[in-house]
C-alpha cells in the first residue's frame, strides 16, 4: 500500500482538513490554504464555463441545424455540457496521473495546482478537439511545463497555456482555421472567429460590439462571454486571490496598443473591440494572473501586465500567421518574468544602499 501513499494522502486531505497543528513560529495561522485558493479560482471560472456550455450548443444549433433563434435554453446547455464533460475527464485523468506519479516518486503531497490547470484546459480548447490530443497535450504540459522543474511552484510557464500551445503547434489543424469552432460541424460548415475574420480581412462580417461582449460568437469554450469573465475577475479581485495590478495593466497595455494600431491604420478594428475579441480578456483575468509564472514583485507585475497586453495586440496585428496573440504573449512574458523581477529587486537594493549612505552622511 505504500506505493499509493501520495494518492491516499491527496484523497484524505481532500476530504478532511489536515490535523496538523503549528509547531514552530506563529501559533495561530490564517485559515486559508492552497486548496481554498484553488477552489476560489474554480468558482470564479464557473460563470464563463456555464455560458460556454450554452454557447457551444447555441452555435451548433444555429449554424449546423440552421435553427436560428428558435431553440430554447436547456438543449443548448445540455449539448455543450456533454461536449465539455469528456474533455474535462480526459484532462484530469491524464494530468493527475502524471501529478500523482511524481508526488509519489518525490515523496511530497499532491499539489492542488492542477485542479485549476485541468479546469482551464478544456475552456481554452475548441469544442470538437479530439480527446487523445487533449490527453497528450495535458500530459506534455504537466510533465515538461511543471514536473521536470520540480512541480507546482517551480514552473515558469503557465501549464494550461503550454497545453494549448502544444496543440497549436503540434496539431494546428484542430485549433485554427474556420472549421473547428462550431461543434458537430462538417467541412461544409465554416464559421470564423472574429479574430479569424480580421486576419483574412473580412471585417465587414464582424459581430457587433454587443455580441462580442455577451459572447454569442464562435470561439473556445470559456473565452467568449466577457460578462462572465468580468464576474470571474470581480470574484478573484475581491477575494484577493488574483492580483488586480496584472489585470489592469494587461488591459491598459492592450487597449493602448490596439488604439495606436487603429489610429495609425495598421488595423481596421477599433481598440475596444480588440479587447473584446478572442481570449484577450480570459487570458488577462485567469492566465496572466497565475501567481507562480507572473512577475513576483509589485512593480514587476505592472511591467509584466503592460508587456503582455502590448505583445498580444502586436502579435495579432502584425503577424498574419497567428490570429490569437494572447497565448504567445503570456508564455513569452512568463519567460521574461524572472528578468523583470531581477531588475526590480536590483532597483530595490540600490535604493536602500542610497538611503544608508545618505543617513550616514547626515549623521556626520
Amino acid at each position, binding site marked *: 500500500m505504500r506505493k499509493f501513499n501520495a494518492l491516499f494522502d491527496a484523497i484524505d*486531505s481532500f476530504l478532511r482538513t489536515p490535523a496538523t497543528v503549528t509547531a*514552530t513560529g506563529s501559533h*495561530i495561522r490564517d*485559515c486559508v*490554504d*492552497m486548496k481554498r485558493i484553488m477552489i476560489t479560482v474554480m468558482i470564479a471560472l464557473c460563470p464563463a464555463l456555464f455560458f460556454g456550455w450554452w454557447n457551444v450548443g447555441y452555435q451548433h444549433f444555429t449554424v449546423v441545424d440552421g435553427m436560428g433563434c428558435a431553440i430554447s435554453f436547456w438543449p443548448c446547455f445540455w449539448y455543450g455540457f456533454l461536449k465539455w464533460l469528456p474533455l474535462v475527464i480526459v484532462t484530469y485523468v491524464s494530468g493527475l496521473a502524471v501529478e500523482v506519479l511524481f508526488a509519489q516518486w518525490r515523496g511530497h503531497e499532491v499539489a492542488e495546482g492542477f485542479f485549476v490547470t485541468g479546469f482551464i484546459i478544456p475552456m481554452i480548447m475548441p469544442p470538437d478537439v479530439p480527446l487523445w490530443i487533449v490527453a497528450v497535450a495535458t500530459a506534455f504540459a504537466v510533465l515538461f511545463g511543471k514536473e521536470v522543474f*520540480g512541480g507546482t*511552484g517551480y514552473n515558469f510557464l503557465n501549464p494550461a497555456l503550454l497545453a494549448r500551445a502544444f496543440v497549436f503547434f503540434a496539431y494546428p489543424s484542430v485549433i485554427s482555421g474556420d472549421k473547428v469552432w462550431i461543434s458537430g460541424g462538417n467541412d461544409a460548415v465554416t464559421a470564423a472567429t472574429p479574430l479569424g475574420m480580421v486576419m483574412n480581412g473580412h471585417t465587414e462580417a464582424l459581430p457587433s460590439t454587443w455580441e462580442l461582449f455577451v459572447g454569442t460568437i464562435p470561439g473556445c469554450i470559456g473565452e467568449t462571454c466577457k460578462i462572465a469573465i468580468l464576474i470571474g475577475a470581480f470574484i478573484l479581485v475581491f477575494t484577493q486571490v488574483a492580483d488586480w495590478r496584472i489585470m489592469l495593466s494587461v488591459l491598459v497595455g492592450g487597449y493602448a496598443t490596439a488604439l495606436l494600431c487603429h489610429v495609425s491604420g495598421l488595423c481596421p478594428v477599433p481598440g475596444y473591440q480588440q479587447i473584446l475579441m478572442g481570449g484577450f480578456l480570459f487570458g488577462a483575468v485567469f492566465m496572466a494572473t497565475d501567481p507562480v509564472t507572473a512577475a513576483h514583485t509589485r512593480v514587476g507585475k505592472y511591467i509584466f501586465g503592460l508587456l503582455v497586453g502590448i505583445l498580444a495586440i502586436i502579435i495579432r496585428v502584425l503577424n498574419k500567421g497567428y490570429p490569437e496573440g494572447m497565448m504567445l504573449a503570456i508564455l513569452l512574458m512568463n519567460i521574461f518574468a524572472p528578468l523583470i523581477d531581477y531588475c526590480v529587486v536590483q532597483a530595490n537594493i540600490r535604493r536602500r544602499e542610497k538611503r*544608508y549612505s545618505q543617513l550616514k552622511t547626515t549623521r556626520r
Partner: protein
Amino acid sequence: MKLDGLAELQTLEFPAAPFYYIRPSDFRWLTPRLLVAENDPVEVGTPLFADKQDDRVVVVSPVRGCVRQIVRGAKRAILALVIESETSAAPFRIVDVPMPSNSQDARTLMMQYGLWPMLRQRPFSVIPNPDAQPKAVFIPCFDSAPLAPDYNQLMEGKEVFFQNGLKIIRMAAGNAPLHLCVREGADNSLFERCEDVQLHYFQGPHPAGNVGTQIHYIDPIAKGETVWFADPQDVALIGRFFAVHELSFEKMIALTGPAATTTGYFTASYGADLTKLFKQEWGREELRVISGNVLTGAKMEDFPTVRFYDRQVTILREGGQREWLGWLLPGFRKWSFSHTFLAWLFPRKSFAHNTSLHGGRRTFMMTDVYDKVFPFDIIPLSLLKACYIKDLEQMEALGIYEVDDEDFALCEVVCPSKMECQQIVRDALYELKMNS
C-alpha cells in the same frame, strides 16, 4: 487580527514562586559556562552562568535560594537551572553601587550585576558585544501584537526609575541617540516627560510596535552597524538599581488568551514557576500555554515560566480538529487575511483562534500576500528565498541586517503555503552570524 482574551486591567494575586527555572536558551545563541554547582546557595544577583564567548556577560539569579538541579538535555546541553527560592526572602537585594561616571563604568556595572542581558542588539537580537559602540538605542514603548499588554499598566509607578535607566543606558551607549517609539493617539504622557530623547509616533496595525519596523523607519541598519534596544520595564529595573540600589528582576507580566479562565497583570521575576497562576489550564492537552504572544511566543513545555524577554503569557486552545471538505465550506467563522471565506462579509469582533495549521505545506506560490503585511522597503519574498537557500551575499543585499524572525511573523500567519518564515529567517541569521 482579533482575538478574545485581552488582559483585564486587574492585578492578579501571585504568591512568591517556590521554584525558578533559568534557561540559557532564552538568550539567543548563548553558550553557557556554568558558574554554580548543584546545592550552591545563591543570592539575588549571583552569577549563574557566563557566555562562553565573553566571560564578562553573565546571567544572574533573580532570587535568593539554592540551586536544586541542573537539567541537561541531549549532548549534555543545559536546559535549565532549577533554583528553589527562600520564599520569605525579599525579591530584591540592596547593593551599594556607585553612580557610573563613564560608558565603560556603566557597562562594567551592568555586566557585573546581570543587567547587561536586558539590552539586545540588532542585527541578530543577541546580547550586545560589551566593547561595541551602537549607533543608536531604541526603546519600543508600545506593543502592537495580538492581546498585547498595556504599557501604561506595565510601567505604573516606574516613571522615575525609567528616566534614570535611560540616563544609564545613554551613558553606556556613549551618548548614542535614544529613540522612544510610542503609539500615536495613546496616552504617552509617561514617555513624553522623558528628557534628552527623540520621541517618534507610530500608527497603524502590527508590526508597528516591532522594534525592527521602528528602526527601519527611523535609522535603518547597514552592514557593520549595530543598534541596541531594550524593553521599558527592563530600563526601569536598570534605573532602579542605580537610583535606589535595589537589584531586582521583578516585572509586570500580562496573562492573556482566549482559553485563559482569568486574565490580568501579575508581578514576577523571570524564571518564576507560574503553575499557581494557571492551575486550571496547565498540563491540559487541549490547551497550549505560550510564553509571549501568539505570533512569536514559545510553547511552555517542560518549564511553566516566561522567557527572559517576554512580558505576556497567552493561553490558546489546541487545534487539529479535522473538518469534512473544509476547503469547500463557506466559512462564516473562519478568520482569514484573504477574503476567500465569507467571514469577511460579516465582520466579527473576534474569532475562536486555535493552533491548527489549516492546510498542508506547499512551495512559495502566492506572491503578493507577504507584501501586504510587511511594511519594510524590502522585498519579503526575495529575501525569504535568499534565506531559504542561505545565499549570504544576496541576503545582505536584500536587507537581512534590518530584520529579525519576528518581523516575518505576520508573513508566516497569512502564508497559504504554510511556510515557516520565522524559522527560515532565524536559520539564515544564524548562518550569517557564524560566517561574520
